[in-house]
Protein backbone atom coordinates (compact mmCIF):
# COMPACT_ATOMS: atom_id res chain seq x y z
CA UNK A 1 0.00 0.00 0.00
CA UNK A 2 1.69 3.18 -1.19
CA UNK A 3 -0.16 5.83 0.79
CA UNK A 4 0.66 5.53 4.51
CA UNK A 5 -2.34 7.68 5.47
CA UNK A 6 -4.66 5.19 3.82
CA UNK A 7 -2.96 2.38 5.75
CA UNK A 8 -3.25 4.30 9.02
CA UNK A 9 -6.87 5.35 8.52
CA UNK A 10 -7.96 1.84 7.58
CA UNK A 11 -6.18 0.40 10.63
CA UNK A 12 -7.91 2.88 12.91
CA UNK A 13 -11.33 2.51 11.29
CA UNK A 14 -11.36 -1.28 11.29
CA UNK A 15 -10.63 -1.25 15.01
CA UNK A 16 -13.39 1.22 15.81
CA UNK A 17 -16.72 -0.12 17.04
CA UNK A 18 -18.33 2.76 15.15
CA UNK A 19 -17.66 1.03 11.81
CA UNK A 20 -19.53 -2.09 12.79
CA UNK A 21 -22.40 -0.21 14.44
CA UNK A 22 -22.85 2.01 11.38
CA UNK A 23 -22.67 -1.01 9.05
CA UNK A 24 -25.26 -2.89 11.14
CA UNK A 25 -27.68 0.06 11.30
CA UNK A 26 -27.17 0.70 7.61
CA UNK A 27 -28.02 -2.89 6.71
CA UNK A 28 -31.04 -2.81 9.00
CA UNK A 29 -32.27 0.33 7.31
CA UNK A 30 -31.80 -1.14 3.82
CA UNK A 31 -33.52 -4.36 4.85
CA UNK A 32 -36.48 -2.45 6.26
CA UNK A 33 -36.82 -0.26 3.18
CA UNK A 34 -36.59 -3.26 0.81
CA UNK A 35 -39.39 -5.03 2.61
CA UNK A 36 -41.84 -2.20 1.99
CA UNK A 37 -42.03 -2.63 -1.83
CA UNK A 38 -41.75 -6.41 -1.52
CA UNK A 39 -44.78 -6.66 0.73
CA UNK A 40 -46.81 -4.01 -1.06
CA UNK A 41 -46.19 -5.52 -4.54
CA UNK A 42 -46.82 -9.12 -3.56
CA UNK A 43 -50.05 -8.27 -1.75
CA UNK A 44 -51.32 -6.19 -4.64
CA UNK A 45 -54.86 -7.39 -5.54
CA UNK A 46 -54.22 -6.98 -9.27
CA UNK A 47 -51.05 -9.01 -9.44
CA UNK A 48 -50.15 -10.04 -12.95
CA UNK A 49 -47.82 -12.54 -14.64
CA UNK A 50 -45.24 -9.72 -14.84
CA UNK A 51 -45.32 -9.41 -11.08
CA UNK A 52 -41.77 -10.73 -10.41
CA UNK A 53 -40.30 -8.03 -12.67
CA UNK A 54 -42.42 -5.38 -10.93
CA UNK A 55 -41.20 -6.62 -7.58
CA UNK A 56 -37.62 -6.50 -8.82
CA UNK A 57 -37.98 -2.93 -10.12
CA UNK A 58 -39.73 -1.80 -6.93
CA UNK A 59 -37.05 -3.30 -4.69
CA UNK A 60 -34.27 -1.91 -6.85
CA UNK A 61 -35.75 1.62 -6.98
CA UNK A 62 -36.32 1.70 -3.24
CA UNK A 63 -32.91 0.25 -2.52
CA UNK A 64 -30.89 2.63 -4.67
CA UNK A 65 -32.62 5.73 -3.29
CA UNK A 66 -32.32 4.47 0.29
CA UNK A 67 -28.69 3.67 -0.39
CA UNK A 68 -28.11 7.11 -1.88
CA UNK A 69 -29.87 8.83 1.03
CA UNK A 70 -27.83 6.88 3.59
CA UNK A 71 -24.55 7.49 1.81
CA UNK A 72 -25.31 11.20 1.48
CA UNK A 73 -25.39 11.30 5.26
CA UNK A 74 -22.59 8.84 6.03
CA UNK A 75 -19.92 9.81 3.50
CA UNK A 76 -19.68 13.51 4.43
CA UNK A 77 -19.74 12.59 8.10
CA UNK A 78 -16.91 10.12 7.68
CA UNK A 79 -14.54 12.75 6.30
CA UNK A 80 -15.93 15.88 7.97
CA UNK A 81 -13.34 15.80 10.76
CA UNK A 82 -10.44 14.23 8.89
CA UNK A 83 -8.17 17.28 8.90
CA UNK A 84 -9.60 19.25 11.82
CA UNK A 85 -8.97 16.20 14.02
CA UNK A 86 -5.33 16.07 12.93
CA UNK A 87 -5.14 19.75 13.71
CA UNK A 88 -6.63 19.25 17.16
CA UNK A 89 -4.31 16.32 17.84
CA UNK A 90 -1.38 18.49 16.64
CA UNK A 91 -0.13 15.69 14.42
CA UNK A 92 0.22 17.72 11.22
CA UNK A 93 3.70 19.22 11.83
CA UNK A 94 5.13 15.72 12.39
CA UNK A 95 3.29 14.42 9.36
CA UNK A 96 4.52 17.19 7.09
CA UNK A 97 8.07 16.67 8.33
CA UNK A 98 8.15 13.58 6.11
CA UNK A 99 8.40 13.26 2.33
CA UNK A 100 4.59 13.27 2.22
CA UNK A 101 2.98 16.27 0.51
CA UNK A 102 -0.23 17.87 1.75
CA UNK A 103 -1.95 16.48 -1.36
CA UNK A 104 -0.81 12.94 -0.48
CA UNK A 105 -2.06 13.39 3.08
CA UNK A 106 -5.45 14.68 1.89
CA UNK A 107 -5.70 11.97 -0.77
CA UNK A 108 -4.85 9.21 1.71
CA UNK A 109 -7.62 10.38 3.97
CA UNK A 110 -10.00 10.61 1.06
CA UNK A 111 -9.11 7.14 -0.18
CA UNK A 112 -9.87 5.73 3.26
CA UNK A 113 -13.33 7.31 3.14
CA UNK A 114 -13.88 5.97 -0.36
CA UNK A 115 -12.93 2.48 0.78
CA UNK A 116 -15.50 2.85 3.55
CA UNK A 117 -18.12 3.95 1.01
CA UNK A 118 -17.24 0.97 -1.18
CA UNK A 119 -17.63 -1.29 1.84
CA UNK A 120 -21.14 0.09 2.46
CA UNK A 121 -22.02 -0.20 -1.22
CA UNK A 122 -20.75 -3.78 -1.16
CA UNK A 123 -23.00 -4.54 1.78
CA UNK A 124 -25.99 -3.26 -0.16
CA UNK A 125 -25.30 -5.35 -3.27
CA UNK A 126 -27.53 -8.28 -2.23
CA UNK A 127 -30.52 -5.92 -2.13
CA UNK A 128 -29.75 -4.47 -5.54
CA UNK A 129 -29.21 -7.93 -7.03
CA UNK A 130 -32.71 -8.88 -5.92
CA UNK A 131 -33.89 -6.67 -8.78
CA UNK A 132 -31.84 -8.77 -11.17
CA UNK A 133 -33.07 -12.05 -9.67
CA UNK A 134 -36.67 -10.96 -10.24
CA UNK A 135 -35.70 -10.11 -13.83
CA UNK A 136 -36.86 -6.50 -13.71
CA UNK A 137 -33.39 -4.94 -13.78
CA UNK A 138 -30.32 -5.68 -15.87
CA UNK A 139 -26.82 -6.00 -14.45
CA UNK A 140 -25.84 -2.93 -16.44
CA UNK A 141 -28.50 -0.87 -14.65
CA UNK A 142 -27.28 -2.13 -11.28
CA UNK A 143 -23.71 -1.17 -12.15
CA UNK A 144 -24.78 2.29 -13.42
CA UNK A 145 -26.69 2.94 -10.21
CA UNK A 146 -23.75 1.84 -8.09
CA UNK A 147 -21.39 3.97 -10.16
CA UNK A 148 -23.54 7.08 -9.72
CA UNK A 149 -23.97 6.43 -5.99
CA UNK A 150 -20.23 5.91 -5.55
CA UNK A 151 -19.49 9.10 -7.52
CA UNK A 152 -21.94 11.01 -5.28
CA UNK A 153 -20.23 9.53 -2.22
CA UNK A 154 -16.82 10.52 -3.59
CA UNK A 155 -17.80 14.12 -4.24
CA UNK A 156 -19.67 14.64 -0.97
CA UNK A 157 -16.80 13.19 1.06
CA UNK A 158 -14.31 15.38 -0.84
CA UNK A 159 -16.38 18.48 -0.10
CA UNK A 160 -16.55 17.47 3.58
CA UNK A 161 -12.78 16.94 3.61
CA UNK A 162 -12.27 20.42 2.16
CA UNK A 163 -14.52 21.88 4.84
CA UNK A 164 -12.59 20.01 7.53
CA UNK A 165 -9.47 21.71 6.19
CA UNK A 166 -11.19 25.06 6.31
CA UNK A 167 -12.60 24.85 9.84
CA UNK A 168 -10.23 24.75 12.79
CA UNK A 169 -12.23 22.65 15.24
CA UNK A 170 -13.86 19.29 14.78
CA UNK A 171 -17.19 20.46 16.12
CA UNK A 172 -17.33 23.50 13.81
CA UNK A 173 -16.22 21.24 10.99
CA UNK A 174 -19.20 18.93 11.56
CA UNK A 175 -21.59 21.87 11.93
CA UNK A 176 -20.19 23.61 8.86
CA UNK A 177 -20.43 20.43 6.79
CA UNK A 178 -24.01 19.84 7.96
CA UNK A 179 -24.96 23.41 7.06
CA UNK A 180 -23.36 23.31 3.61
CA UNK A 181 -25.02 20.01 2.72
CA UNK A 182 -28.39 21.11 4.13
CA UNK A 183 -28.21 24.19 1.91
CA UNK A 184 -27.15 22.15 -1.12
CA UNK A 185 -29.50 19.18 -0.72
CA UNK A 186 -32.61 20.85 0.70
CA UNK A 187 -32.64 24.65 0.57
CA UNK A 188 -31.20 25.22 -2.91
CA UNK A 189 -33.67 22.84 -4.70
CA UNK A 190 -36.56 24.41 -2.77
CA UNK A 191 -35.45 27.86 -3.91
CA UNK A 192 -35.45 26.40 -7.43
CA UNK A 193 -39.03 25.28 -6.98
CA UNK A 194 -40.06 28.60 -5.47
CA UNK A 195 -38.95 30.56 -8.52
CA UNK A 196 -41.35 28.57 -10.75
CA UNK A 197 -43.97 31.35 -10.69
CA UNK A 198 -41.39 33.59 -12.39
CA UNK A 199 -41.64 31.41 -15.51
CA UNK A 200 -42.54 33.61 -18.51
CA UNK A 201 -45.97 33.07 -20.04
CA UNK A 202 -46.75 32.63 -23.70
CA UNK A 203 -43.36 32.37 -25.45
CA UNK A 204 -42.44 28.66 -25.58
CA UNK A 205 -38.77 29.30 -26.35
CA UNK A 206 -38.44 31.56 -23.31
CA UNK A 207 -40.28 29.02 -21.21
CA UNK A 208 -37.87 26.31 -22.31
CA UNK A 209 -34.92 28.60 -21.56
CA UNK A 210 -36.30 29.32 -18.12
CA UNK A 211 -36.88 25.60 -17.45
CA UNK A 212 -33.30 24.85 -18.49
CA UNK A 213 -31.97 27.61 -16.26
CA UNK A 214 -34.07 26.34 -13.36
CA UNK A 215 -33.04 22.73 -13.87
CA UNK A 216 -29.32 23.26 -14.41
CA UNK A 217 -28.95 25.92 -11.70
CA UNK A 218 -30.94 24.34 -8.90
CA UNK A 219 -31.48 20.64 -9.48
CA UNK A 220 -29.12 19.01 -11.97
CA UNK A 221 -26.09 18.97 -9.64
CA UNK A 222 -28.09 17.61 -6.71
CA UNK A 223 -26.55 14.22 -5.79
CA UNK A 224 -29.87 12.46 -6.40
CA UNK A 225 -30.46 14.09 -9.80
CA UNK A 226 -28.20 11.81 -11.91
CA UNK A 227 -29.91 8.79 -10.39
CA UNK A 228 -33.34 10.19 -11.25
CA UNK A 229 -32.16 11.01 -14.76
CA UNK A 230 -30.65 7.57 -15.31
CA UNK A 231 -33.70 5.71 -14.03
CA UNK A 232 -36.46 8.09 -15.07
CA UNK A 233 -38.23 5.42 -17.15
CA UNK A 234 -38.41 3.01 -14.24
CA UNK A 235 -39.41 5.77 -11.84
CA UNK A 236 -41.99 7.54 -13.98
CA UNK A 237 -43.41 4.40 -15.62
CA UNK A 238 -42.08 5.12 -19.10
CA UNK A 239 -42.39 8.88 -19.01
CA UNK A 240 -39.24 10.94 -19.30
CA UNK A 241 -38.09 14.38 -18.24
CA UNK A 242 -37.93 17.13 -20.90
CA UNK A 243 -34.12 17.32 -20.78
CA UNK A 244 -31.38 15.67 -22.74
CA UNK A 245 -30.38 12.93 -20.33
CA UNK A 246 -26.79 12.63 -21.55
CA UNK A 247 -26.19 16.37 -21.41
CA UNK A 248 -27.79 16.60 -17.97
CA UNK A 249 -25.76 13.65 -16.68
CA UNK A 250 -22.50 15.00 -18.07
CA UNK A 251 -23.27 18.45 -16.71
CA UNK A 252 -23.98 17.02 -13.24
CA UNK A 253 -20.80 14.95 -13.28
CA UNK A 254 -18.84 17.98 -14.51
CA UNK A 255 -20.12 20.11 -11.63
CA UNK A 256 -19.26 17.31 -9.18
CA UNK A 257 -15.78 17.00 -10.61
CA UNK A 258 -15.22 20.76 -10.36
CA UNK A 259 -16.54 20.82 -6.78
CA UNK A 260 -14.37 17.84 -5.89
CA UNK A 261 -11.22 19.48 -7.27
CA UNK A 262 -11.95 22.82 -5.61
CA UNK A 263 -12.59 21.26 -2.20
CA UNK A 264 -9.58 18.95 -2.52
CA UNK A 265 -7.48 22.06 -3.08
CA UNK A 266 -9.13 23.66 -0.02
CA UNK A 267 -8.24 20.54 2.01
CA UNK A 268 -4.59 20.75 0.93
CA UNK A 269 -4.48 24.44 1.79
CA UNK A 270 -6.08 23.66 5.14
CA UNK A 271 -3.32 21.17 5.96
CA UNK A 272 -0.62 23.76 5.26
CA UNK A 273 -2.59 26.53 6.99
CA UNK A 274 -2.80 24.44 10.17
CA UNK A 275 0.93 25.00 10.67
CA UNK A 276 0.47 28.69 11.35
CA UNK A 277 -2.07 27.97 14.14
CA UNK A 278 -0.87 29.15 17.50
Amino acid at each position, binding site marked *: *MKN*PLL*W*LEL*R*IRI*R*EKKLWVISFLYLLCLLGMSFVPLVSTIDHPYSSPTQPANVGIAIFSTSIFTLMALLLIISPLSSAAAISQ*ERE*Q*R*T*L*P*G*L*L*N*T*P*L*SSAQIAFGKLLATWVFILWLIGLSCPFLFLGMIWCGISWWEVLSALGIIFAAGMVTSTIALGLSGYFKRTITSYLGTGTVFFLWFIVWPIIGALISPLQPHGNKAEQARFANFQFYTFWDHHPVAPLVLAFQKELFEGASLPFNTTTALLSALGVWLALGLIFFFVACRGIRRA*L*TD*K
Partner: protein
Amino acid sequence: MSAFTPHKLFLREITIRYPNKAIAVSELTLEVPPGEVFGLVGPNGAGKSSLLKCAAGLLKPVHGSVWCGDAEVTYNPRLTAGYLTLMPDPLGVYNDITAAEYLEFFAMAFDLPQELSRTRRQLAIDRLGLAPWLDHEVETLSAGWQRRLALSRVLLANTPIVLLDEPAAGLDVSARSDLLKIVRGFAAEGRTVVVTSHILPELEELADRFGIIQKGKWVPVSKDQIFFNRNDLTDSFQKGAWSLECSSPDAVRLLLGEDKVQLLPGSNRLRLLAQNREEAAEQVARVMRAGHKIYHFEAETLTLAEVTREALEPKT
Protein backbone atom coordinates in the same frame (compact mmCIF):
# COMPACT_ATOMS: atom_id res chain seq x y z
CA MET B 1 22.52 1.28 10.07
CA SER B 2 23.69 3.13 6.99
CA ALA B 3 25.76 6.18 7.86
CA PHE B 4 24.41 9.62 7.21
CA THR B 5 26.45 12.52 5.92
CA PRO B 6 26.81 15.15 8.64
CA HIS B 7 25.35 18.51 7.65
CA LYS B 8 25.46 21.89 9.27
CA LEU B 9 22.23 23.86 9.68
CA PHE B 10 22.40 27.41 8.44
CA LEU B 11 19.55 29.86 8.88
CA ARG B 12 20.34 33.05 7.03
CA GLU B 13 18.62 36.30 8.01
CA ILE B 14 15.30 34.66 8.64
CA THR B 15 12.25 36.87 9.04
CA ILE B 16 8.89 35.27 9.78
CA ARG B 17 5.53 36.95 10.09
CA TYR B 18 2.46 35.55 11.84
CA PRO B 19 -0.77 35.45 9.81
CA ASN B 20 -1.81 38.65 11.64
CA LYS B 21 1.33 40.28 10.12
CA ALA B 22 3.09 40.59 13.48
CA ILE B 23 6.79 39.80 13.29
CA ALA B 24 7.63 36.43 14.84
CA VAL B 25 11.31 36.34 13.93
CA SER B 26 13.35 39.22 12.59
CA GLU B 27 16.47 38.80 10.42
CA LEU B 28 17.87 36.04 12.54
CA THR B 29 20.98 34.14 11.50
CA LEU B 30 22.16 30.90 13.06
CA GLU B 31 24.79 28.36 12.03
CA VAL B 32 25.09 25.07 13.87
CA PRO B 33 27.91 22.70 12.86
CA PRO B 34 27.58 18.89 12.87
CA GLY B 35 28.01 17.26 16.26
CA GLU B 36 26.98 20.36 18.18
CA VAL B 37 23.94 20.71 20.42
CA PHE B 38 22.69 24.27 20.21
CA GLY B 39 20.40 25.50 22.99
CA LEU B 40 17.83 28.07 21.96
CA VAL B 41 16.66 29.99 25.01
CA GLY B 42 13.93 32.56 25.35
CA PRO B 43 10.64 33.44 26.97
CA ASN B 44 7.25 32.26 25.68
CA GLY B 45 6.36 33.85 22.35
CA ALA B 46 9.98 34.76 21.62
CA GLY B 47 9.85 33.03 18.23
CA LYS B 48 11.70 29.82 19.07
CA SER B 49 9.04 27.40 17.78
CA SER B 50 8.41 29.52 14.69
CA LEU B 51 12.14 29.46 13.93
CA LEU B 52 12.27 25.66 14.25
CA LYS B 53 9.16 25.23 12.10
CA CYS B 54 10.70 27.51 9.50
CA ALA B 55 13.92 25.50 9.60
CA ALA B 56 11.84 22.36 9.01
CA GLY B 57 10.26 23.97 5.94
CA LEU B 58 6.84 24.17 7.54
CA LEU B 59 6.66 27.96 7.76
CA LYS B 60 7.50 30.27 4.93
CA PRO B 61 9.90 33.05 5.86
CA VAL B 62 9.16 36.43 4.35
CA HIS B 63 12.90 36.89 4.07
CA GLY B 64 15.98 34.72 4.40
CA SER B 65 16.86 31.15 3.60
CA VAL B 66 17.40 27.78 5.25
CA TRP B 67 20.37 25.61 4.34
CA CYS B 68 21.11 22.03 5.29
CA GLY B 69 24.74 21.62 4.36
CA ASP B 70 25.07 22.97 0.83
CA ALA B 71 21.42 22.44 -0.06
CA GLU B 72 18.94 25.28 0.16
CA VAL B 73 15.69 23.87 1.55
CA THR B 74 13.71 27.03 2.34
CA TYR B 75 9.97 26.26 2.70
CA ASN B 76 10.31 22.86 1.09
CA PRO B 77 9.17 20.39 3.75
CA ARG B 78 9.52 17.32 1.53
CA LEU B 79 13.11 18.14 0.68
CA THR B 80 13.86 19.22 4.25
CA ALA B 81 12.51 15.92 5.58
CA GLY B 82 15.52 14.21 4.00
CA TYR B 83 17.90 16.28 6.13
CA LEU B 84 16.07 17.20 9.25
CA THR B 85 13.65 15.80 11.81
CA LEU B 86 11.53 18.11 13.91
CA MET B 87 10.01 17.07 17.21
CA PRO B 88 7.41 19.80 17.68
CA ASP B 89 5.83 21.12 20.83
CA PRO B 90 3.15 20.18 21.65
CA LEU B 91 4.01 16.70 20.56
CA GLY B 92 1.11 15.42 18.48
CA VAL B 93 0.51 11.71 18.73
CA TYR B 94 -2.03 9.43 17.14
CA ASN B 95 -4.22 8.08 19.87
CA ASP B 96 -5.64 4.97 18.26
CA ILE B 97 -2.52 3.15 17.12
CA THR B 98 0.08 1.09 18.91
CA ALA B 99 3.74 2.04 19.22
CA ALA B 100 4.63 -0.66 16.67
CA GLU B 101 2.11 0.77 14.23
CA TYR B 102 3.50 4.26 14.84
CA LEU B 103 6.95 3.04 13.80
CA GLU B 104 5.54 1.22 10.80
CA PHE B 105 3.50 4.23 9.74
CA PHE B 106 6.45 6.61 9.81
CA ALA B 107 8.68 4.08 8.08
CA MET B 108 6.08 4.06 5.30
CA ALA B 109 5.86 7.85 5.36
CA PHE B 110 9.64 8.03 4.86
CA ASP B 111 9.16 5.63 1.95
CA LEU B 112 11.72 3.14 3.25
CA PRO B 113 12.14 -0.11 1.34
CA GLN B 114 10.88 -3.13 3.31
CA GLU B 115 14.25 -4.45 4.45
CA LEU B 116 15.61 -1.05 5.41
CA SER B 117 12.35 -0.25 7.18
CA ARG B 118 12.66 -3.41 9.27
CA THR B 119 16.31 -2.68 10.13
CA ARG B 120 15.69 0.92 11.13
CA ARG B 121 12.58 0.07 13.15
CA GLN B 122 14.56 -2.53 15.04
CA LEU B 123 17.38 -0.04 15.61
CA ALA B 124 14.91 2.52 16.98
CA ILE B 125 13.34 -0.10 19.24
CA ASP B 126 16.75 -1.15 20.58
CA ARG B 127 18.24 2.32 20.97
CA LEU B 128 15.18 3.87 22.56
CA GLY B 129 14.17 0.83 24.61
CA LEU B 130 10.72 0.66 23.07
CA ALA B 131 10.38 -3.13 23.04
CA PRO B 132 8.11 -3.44 26.12
CA TRP B 133 5.70 -0.85 24.76
CA LEU B 134 5.27 -1.96 21.16
CA ASP B 135 1.79 -3.40 21.66
CA HIS B 136 0.58 -0.51 23.79
CA GLU B 137 -1.58 2.19 22.30
CA VAL B 138 0.38 5.43 22.01
CA GLU B 139 -2.09 7.39 24.13
CA THR B 140 -1.58 5.00 27.03
CA LEU B 141 2.19 5.63 27.11
CA SER B 142 3.64 8.12 29.58
CA ALA B 143 4.82 11.50 28.29
CA GLY B 144 8.43 10.29 28.47
CA TRP B 145 7.78 7.22 26.35
CA GLN B 146 5.71 9.21 23.90
CA ARG B 147 8.70 11.51 23.42
CA ARG B 148 11.03 8.57 22.97
CA LEU B 149 8.64 7.20 20.38
CA ALA B 150 8.63 10.55 18.62
CA LEU B 151 12.44 10.51 18.64
CA SER B 152 12.28 7.23 16.77
CA ARG B 153 11.52 9.33 13.68
CA VAL B 154 15.11 10.60 13.81
CA LEU B 155 16.39 7.04 13.57
CA LEU B 156 13.82 5.99 10.98
CA ALA B 157 14.58 8.92 8.69
CA ASN B 158 18.27 8.85 9.72
CA THR B 159 18.51 12.60 9.28
CA PRO B 160 21.74 14.44 10.09
CA ILE B 161 19.89 17.36 11.72
CA VAL B 162 17.51 17.13 14.66
CA LEU B 163 15.32 19.96 15.97
CA LEU B 164 13.73 19.44 19.38
CA ASP B 165 11.14 21.92 20.59
CA GLU B 166 10.73 21.67 24.35
CA PRO B 167 11.62 17.97 24.45
CA ALA B 168 11.64 17.86 28.25
CA ALA B 169 8.32 19.60 28.84
CA GLY B 170 6.14 17.64 31.23
CA LEU B 171 8.75 14.96 31.94
CA ASP B 172 9.86 13.83 35.37
CA VAL B 173 13.52 13.99 36.43
CA SER B 174 14.32 10.43 35.41
CA ALA B 175 12.66 10.72 32.00
CA ARG B 176 14.46 14.02 31.43
CA SER B 177 17.78 12.45 32.25
CA ASP B 178 17.11 9.55 29.86
CA LEU B 179 16.11 11.95 27.12
CA LEU B 180 19.27 13.94 27.70
CA LYS B 181 21.39 10.86 27.15
CA ILE B 182 19.57 10.01 23.94
CA VAL B 183 19.98 13.53 22.56
CA ARG B 184 23.66 13.64 23.52
CA GLY B 185 23.99 10.31 21.74
CA PHE B 186 22.60 11.88 18.57
CA ALA B 187 25.22 14.64 18.77
CA ALA B 188 27.99 12.14 19.48
CA GLU B 189 27.08 10.39 16.22
CA GLY B 190 27.73 13.67 14.39
CA ARG B 191 24.15 14.89 14.12
CA THR B 192 23.44 18.59 14.36
CA VAL B 193 21.00 19.22 17.20
CA VAL B 194 19.01 22.34 18.07
CA VAL B 195 17.03 22.25 21.31
CA THR B 196 14.66 24.74 22.87
CA SER B 197 13.78 24.37 26.51
CA HIS B 198 12.44 26.25 29.47
CA ILE B 199 14.16 23.83 31.80
CA LEU B 200 17.46 25.67 31.78
CA PRO B 201 19.54 23.54 34.15
CA GLU B 202 18.96 20.55 31.85
CA LEU B 203 19.63 22.60 28.74
CA GLU B 204 22.83 23.88 30.33
CA GLU B 205 23.93 20.30 30.79
CA LEU B 206 22.84 19.23 27.31
CA ALA B 207 23.86 22.00 24.94
CA ASP B 208 27.34 22.99 23.82
CA ARG B 209 26.41 26.49 22.72
CA PHE B 210 23.53 28.81 23.50
CA GLY B 211 21.67 31.78 22.07
CA ILE B 212 18.99 33.86 23.72
CA ILE B 213 16.07 35.02 21.64
CA GLN B 214 13.44 37.59 22.52
CA LYS B 215 10.75 39.14 20.32
CA GLY B 216 12.27 37.30 17.37
CA LYS B 217 15.77 38.74 17.76
CA TRP B 218 19.01 37.57 19.31
CA VAL B 219 19.70 39.12 22.66
CA PRO B 220 23.42 39.85 23.17
CA VAL B 221 24.90 38.62 26.44
CA SER B 222 27.65 41.22 26.34
CA LYS B 223 28.57 44.13 24.12
CA ASP B 224 29.96 42.03 21.26
CA GLN B 225 28.69 38.58 22.02
CA ILE B 226 25.45 36.90 20.97
CA PHE B 227 26.25 33.20 21.30
CA PHE B 228 28.04 31.65 24.23
CA ASN B 229 29.18 28.17 25.11
CA ARG B 230 29.48 26.14 28.26
CA ASN B 231 33.07 27.32 28.81
CA ASP B 232 31.83 30.90 28.82
CA LEU B 233 29.50 30.01 31.66
CA THR B 234 32.35 28.69 33.77
CA ASP B 235 35.20 30.97 32.68
CA SER B 236 34.08 34.20 31.09
CA PHE B 237 30.78 35.01 32.75
CA GLN B 238 31.95 35.58 36.29
CA LYS B 239 29.99 37.28 38.94
CA GLY B 240 33.01 39.07 40.44
CA ALA B 241 32.68 36.80 43.44
CA TRP B 242 34.76 33.92 44.76
CA SER B 243 33.89 31.28 47.27
CA LEU B 244 36.52 30.96 50.00
CA GLU B 245 36.80 28.31 52.70
CA CYS B 246 39.42 29.05 55.33
CA SER B 247 40.49 28.21 58.87
CA SER B 248 39.16 31.36 60.60
CA PRO B 249 36.42 33.14 58.68
CA ASP B 250 35.81 35.89 61.25
CA ALA B 251 39.48 36.88 61.31
CA VAL B 252 39.58 36.96 57.50
CA ARG B 253 36.52 39.22 57.43
CA LEU B 254 38.27 41.62 59.78
CA LEU B 255 41.45 41.41 57.76
CA LEU B 256 39.94 42.13 54.34
CA GLY B 257 37.12 44.41 55.45
CA GLU B 258 33.41 43.59 55.64
CA ASP B 259 32.71 45.36 52.37
CA LYS B 260 34.95 42.86 50.55
CA VAL B 261 33.87 39.66 52.30
CA GLN B 262 30.48 38.18 53.13
CA LEU B 263 29.79 35.17 55.28
CA LEU B 264 27.67 32.72 53.31
CA PRO B 265 24.64 31.85 55.41
CA GLY B 266 24.51 28.30 56.81
CA SER B 267 28.18 27.58 56.18
CA ASN B 268 31.62 28.68 57.27
CA ARG B 269 32.46 29.75 53.75
CA LEU B 270 33.13 33.31 52.75
CA ARG B 271 32.17 35.15 49.64
CA LEU B 272 35.01 37.27 48.41
CA LEU B 273 34.15 40.21 46.15
CA ALA B 274 36.71 41.55 43.70
CA GLN B 275 36.85 43.44 40.43
CA ASN B 276 38.85 40.74 38.65
CA ARG B 277 40.80 37.53 39.22
CA GLU B 278 44.07 39.38 39.90
CA GLU B 279 42.47 41.36 42.71
CA ALA B 280 40.87 38.17 44.09
CA ALA B 281 44.25 36.37 44.00
CA GLU B 282 45.90 39.30 45.82
CA GLN B 283 43.27 39.12 48.58
CA VAL B 284 43.87 35.40 49.00
CA ALA B 285 47.61 35.98 49.17
CA ARG B 286 46.98 38.50 51.98
CA VAL B 287 44.96 35.93 53.89
CA MET B 288 47.72 33.35 53.52
CA ARG B 289 50.42 35.84 54.55
CA ALA B 290 48.41 36.50 57.71
CA GLY B 291 48.82 32.81 58.54
CA HIS B 292 45.30 31.59 57.78
CA LYS B 293 44.81 28.32 56.00
CA ILE B 294 42.87 28.20 52.73
CA TYR B 295 40.92 24.98 52.12
CA HIS B 296 38.98 25.96 49.04
CA PHE B 297 39.00 28.86 46.63
CA GLU B 298 36.76 28.94 43.54
CA ALA B 299 35.24 31.52 41.27
CA GLU B 300 31.46 31.71 41.40
CA THR B 301 30.08 31.31 37.89
CA LEU B 302 26.76 32.22 36.37
CA THR B 303 24.23 29.57 35.49
CA LEU B 304 22.42 29.59 32.16
CA ALA B 305 19.31 30.73 33.98
CA GLU B 306 21.17 33.68 35.49
CA VAL B 307 22.76 34.66 32.19
CA THR B 308 19.39 34.47 30.50
CA ARG B 309 17.65 36.46 33.22
CA GLU B 310 20.35 39.11 33.09
CA ALA B 311 20.27 39.32 29.31
CA LEU B 312 16.49 39.60 29.21
CA GLU B 313 16.25 42.17 31.99
CA PRO B 314 15.45 45.62 30.66
CA LYS B 315 18.59 47.71 30.67
CA THR B 316 18.32 51.00 32.46
